[in-house]
């Protein structure tokens, strides 16, 4: 399990320069390293080797993102010696100029590891900002993996990004922060397919889905439940948002299921109240419906998955798995609140309130009308209202991601009509430093993510 990063001391500014060259920065770094080695060595001892486990190159386009990158880097430094290069681009400024700072941060006094963290800040104005690889390459340490963290939407499809990926081992993004979720997500999927073989692509959004994947995978793990995977009939995914919204997390989760279980997306239809149904074809030509529904939730960030329901039957036995984030209301049986036949017609709804709501919506939607309405389908697929101007704003605000609380996942298992088994698990609300550690601990080369990303992009294109 990745370490949770908490304490964030302030690093010391060891050097700064205005209107400098990268050669100046290199010279300053060498001087700082020499001083550190001499200070660390005792009178009769030789300096120990510097430890450095990675170089983190963070690209920010505003001071708020720059501060986020600094915060994450210093938080990671509490456990892991590394070098961070934080590039803040101001490419719109005509005058070319580089201002630089170098901050150093020794590991905590209790640590016996002789190491420190270096944070190089580069404020780049003008065209130099468009040549990221040339700026950063001379500062990289030999033999140490390089992770490129783009704090907002990377410029997919540009030469700048392609060059930058050539000097790094992995590109890290947060698809929940993409300004234009649909286009950027497809750009990310294209990059993952076309980039050089050794480039890992990592997404915070994917890391946030891990508890969901674990809960679903766990249900099908016992050998006597493996065949249930072939018997899945309906899937329902709720994600946070109003009628429109960022459906990336929900699509990634379904893309993961589809790529693992061999589902092929065929078409999608919209329904009332923001429900969208994707139709998949399974082995043997069997059909499967996946219902996406946006739900308003004040305590979760926009776009986050709030529930998944999977139901079906195998060998004459019905099953239903419901995984739900932060259940707010007391469990009520469907029979208490609505017609009991809904429970059987729309199994993906589940016994919880949200599930019943899905069942009611599913029951009342009119497929034929909506299938004819192509404009509405576009609205469903992109999140943009018909004829409305596209809003290019981040859908996930920093403050929404940093509540510092723990949440729970409630898993409910119904097998063959037996008593519902309820299982509660903790989900840490992880800050960016923790998510970075989690992603980088695997080397950011995750083939399951890549294939899920591809399937999710296919799904989004079909929607």
């Amino acid at each position, binding site marked *: 399990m990745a370490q949770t990063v908490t304490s964030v001391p302030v690093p010391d500014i060891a050097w700064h320069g205005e209107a400098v060259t990268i050669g100046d920065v290199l010279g300053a770094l060498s001087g700082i390293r020499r001083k550190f080695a001499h200070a660390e060595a005792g009178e009769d001892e*030789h300096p120990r080797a510097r*430890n450095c486990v990675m170089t983190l190159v963070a690209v920010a386009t505003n001071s708020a993102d720059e501060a986020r990158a600094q915060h994450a880097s210093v938080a990671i430094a509490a*456990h*892991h010696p590394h070098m961070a290069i934080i590039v803040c681009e101001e490419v719109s400024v005509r005058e070319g100029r580089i201002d630089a700072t170098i901050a150093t941060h020794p*590991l905590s006094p209790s640590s016996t590891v002789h190491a420190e963290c270096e944070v190089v800040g580069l404020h780049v104005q003008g065209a130099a900002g468009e040549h990221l690889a040339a700026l950063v390459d001379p500062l990289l340490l030999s033999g140490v993996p390089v992770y490129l963290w783009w704090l907002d939407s990377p410029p997919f499809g540009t030469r700048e990004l392609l060059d930058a990926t050539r000097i790094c081992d992995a590109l890290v993004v947060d698809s929940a922060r993409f300004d234009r979720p649909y286009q950027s997500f497809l750009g990310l999927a294209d990059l993952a397919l076309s980039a050089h073989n050794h480039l890992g692509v990592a997404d915070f959004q994917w890391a946030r889905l891990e508890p969901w994947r674990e809960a679903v995978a*766990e249900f099908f*793990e016992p050998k006597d439940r493996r065949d249930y995977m*072939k018997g899945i009939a309906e899937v329902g995914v709720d994600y946070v948002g109003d009628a429109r919204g960022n459906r990336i997390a929900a699509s990634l989760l379904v893309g993961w299921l589809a790529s693992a279980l061999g589902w092929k997306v065929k078409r999608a239809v919209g329904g009332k109240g923001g429900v969208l149904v994707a139709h998949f074809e399974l082995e043997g030509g069997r059909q499967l419906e996946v219902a996406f529904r946006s739900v308003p939730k004040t305590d979760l960030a926009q776009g986050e998955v709030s529930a998944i329901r999977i139901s079906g039957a195998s060998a004459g036995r019905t099953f239903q798995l419901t995984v739900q984030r932060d259940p707010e209301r007391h469990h009520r049986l469907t029979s208490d609140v609505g017609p009991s036949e809904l429970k059987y017609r729309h199994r993906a709804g589940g016994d919880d309130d949200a599930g019943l709501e899905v069942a009611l919506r599913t029951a009342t939607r009119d497929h034929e009308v909506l299938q004819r309405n192509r404009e509405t389908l576009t609205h469903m697929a992109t999140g943009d209202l018909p004829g409305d101007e596209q809003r290019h704003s981040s859908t996930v605000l920093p403050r929404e991601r940093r509540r510092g609380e723990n949440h729970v996942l409630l898993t409910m298992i119904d097998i063959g009509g037996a008593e519902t088994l309820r*299982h509660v*698990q903790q989900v840490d609300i992880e800050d960016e430093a923790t998510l970075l550690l989690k992603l980088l601990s695997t080397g950011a080369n995750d083939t399951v993510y890549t294939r899920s990303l591809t399937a999710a992009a296919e799904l989004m294109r079909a929607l």
Partner: protein
Amino acid sequence: MSSPRPLDHNPLAEGLIDFKVRDPSLMVIFGATGDLSGRKLLPAIYNLMKQRLLPAGFAVVGAAIDDLDDAGFRKHASDVVTKFSRTQPLDPQVLQAFLQSLFYVRVDFSKLEDFRSLERKVEELDRTRHLGGNRVYYCATPPPTYETIVEQLRDGGLTKSKGFHRIVIEKPFGSDLTSARELTQILQRVFHEDSVFRIDHYLGKETVQNILAFRFANAIFEPVWNANLIDSVQITAAEEIGVELRGGYYEKAGALRDIVQNHALQLVALVAMEPPTSFEATAVRDEKVKVLRAIRPIQDGEVATSTVRGQYKKGWVLGEEVVGYREEHAVSPGSLTETFAGIRMFVDNWRWSGVPFYIRVGKRMPKRVTEIHIRFKRPPHNTFASARDLDPNAITLRIQPEEGISLRFGAKVPSAGLRLRNVSMDFTYMSSFLVETPEAYERLLLDCMIGDPTLFTRADEVEAAWTFIDPIEAAWRDDRPPLASYPSGTWGPPEADKLVQADGREWHRP
């Protein structure tokens, strides 16, 4: 019509790093109110739950003589987890879920009816929590109870459900070869050997497992890992603590049986074994047992010159004055039990011919440390005059604390002249991997639930270890060599230094 064949693997589990759960199961802990359960097992289960590593439906049934009910056991569990969990502060939601998965049945091990009550409870939980009849029985009890528990499990019908049945026992696995064989026979009357999990918690440590990765996943080390280039191997397992409240047990065990027979010899096996064909339980354990069988027996006449036994006297440890062993609780004032053991041994096979393995284990030493120090031979020709002062190359595998690996080699001192000195390249787990190291018991409990016995000791390994230990133990009972003493807070008696100095070597300073 035949039913379809179940999928061989779960495609949804691919890529999940921490996904260790397998079939849902139930764990019965015998001695659930005891020290081991409170300090290690219950906190480990809480932390596994916190990491979402336990399957839905997983339940623990505590079985002990204390007159408790579910609520009382949950209260006890809450107390011990609060006190001993490695992760603090506790998460209230996880703790709540953990406590709700705990149940209790009062069991007097001598009463069959109590085991039948246990079976009824287990069967009920199995049905309501979809556990598939899978059961793990953990004996957190003294070894003399194992036989009774095993037989009552059989007679009480607790080994008849349709799922798997595994039993976990703690060391010591017998007190000599004869008793170890008897214990194996007792266990195998009811459980297949593949279902017997003998816990040596050292093997659950990440760094112990990393010995195999270091040796067999890297091309550059294995070619030098033999008698051609290795001069000697030193294994140190030191503790700063005394016997604390375990004086009664320790009086019967001593350092030889308590540490050397299991932990230390397991480390020897991992360092010296041939490459297994895979990291699969049978392949790994087959290679380990070959090493244990290849250890040259120390003949009766050699025990006095190849071994050292010592006992700590009063002294200073970590800045505090401490009493001697004979003043400890439940220890005889005239005790001759060793708290330190030093042994020189050889592994008689092609790879290790003539390479001495030095083992030293002890209590009340300056600090808690476990290390394997591989010392290489000097270069065949001395090119540099100043290299005479240079120590030979060495690889140190640090098991605990500060888990890691160091490589020592010579380098030129930057100056006008040509002076050489030792430098080291350090690899530390803490800073090199961006993940936490799990606690050994957590790993082992999970492996047990999964059914992976790779990190557990097999019966033939236990027997091979006792075959080597028994003659030493017999000579020591005969006071050969005489019991030496050492002040608390030192690295053992002077005789231990003489053991290696006689071969022209020194102990590595951990």
